[in-house]
């Protein structure tokens, strides 16, 4: 049962990672990368590492996303 749930999350993470590469709208790509971090933190929790899960959720999903959004505001939003 556990292995199915973890495999589903890994599959979702792969889909989000590929989507972050494909999207031409960089804002959507950043949100997809944020989703990769969120699912990684859920996986860390399943692997019984709640400390790492907390760090991943707060830094990977919140702060890195904010830095990327600021960077997009200074440059262009759409890829060629």
């Amino acid at each position: 049962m556990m292995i199915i749930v973890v495999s589903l999350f890994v599959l979702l993470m792969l889909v989000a990672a590929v989507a972050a590469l494909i999207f031409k709208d960089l804002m959507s790509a950043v949100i997809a990368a944020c989703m990769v971090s969120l699912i990684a933190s859920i996986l860390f929790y399943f692997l019984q590492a709640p400390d790492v899960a907390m760090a991943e959720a707060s830094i990977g999903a919140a702060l890195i996303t904010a830095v990327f959004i600021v960077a997009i505001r200074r440059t262009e939003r759409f890829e060629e």
Partner: protein
Amino acid sequence: MRSIISIFLLVVIAWGMITVLQEIPFGSSETRVGQRYIDQGREETGAANIVTSVVLNYRGFDTLGEITVLFVAAIGLGAVLSTNRKKKKREIESASLVLYTGCRFLFPLILLFGAYIFIHGHLTPGGGFQGGAIVASAFVLVYLGCRGRRISETGSKAVESLGGLIFIGIGLAGLAVGGRYFLSNFLPKGELNTLFSAGVIPILYIAIGFKVGSELAGVIDHLIEDSE
């Protein structure tokens, strides 16, 4: 010519890594230090969370190095970004009522959650770094949601320096009182699984939480201020 050299270097590095990795027995624990932390960590440090007892007690000096690295990174970013800061303010579209009220409502709750994480670092998962990052994410919400609100730069610098000074001061006090090594746990350990236990660990984690929170919030502040 360059590609031949790079392929040659890659082969050499790959050969080195393969020969080293073949020697390592994966999946078995050859060292005894991890088992010792699990068996005796709680009695020796008084912290219910074993990760905390390793991070702040057995490996406290490494943690001092980590917060120094973060400090240097924040200082460097501030020095790079604040060289040619324009004072001219761009006209910003004000946020809608729903966004503004939501940010103002969520901000103290996220601060409270971050403070809970780093105050209870020796009891529950998490600690100074995680709690500090959550506190900084509360400031990010305010910066992106309700524009025009800023923390004062001198205040955040003062909090940051105070956190670092408390960490080093407690480490030196442990050296003076405990007499054996830097950051030795000289306060009474107390009862396991209570808030006032584990000696100096909660004080250190509160100092780290304030320091990391103000540093990361300062980094985001510099980036956003420079982009306007």
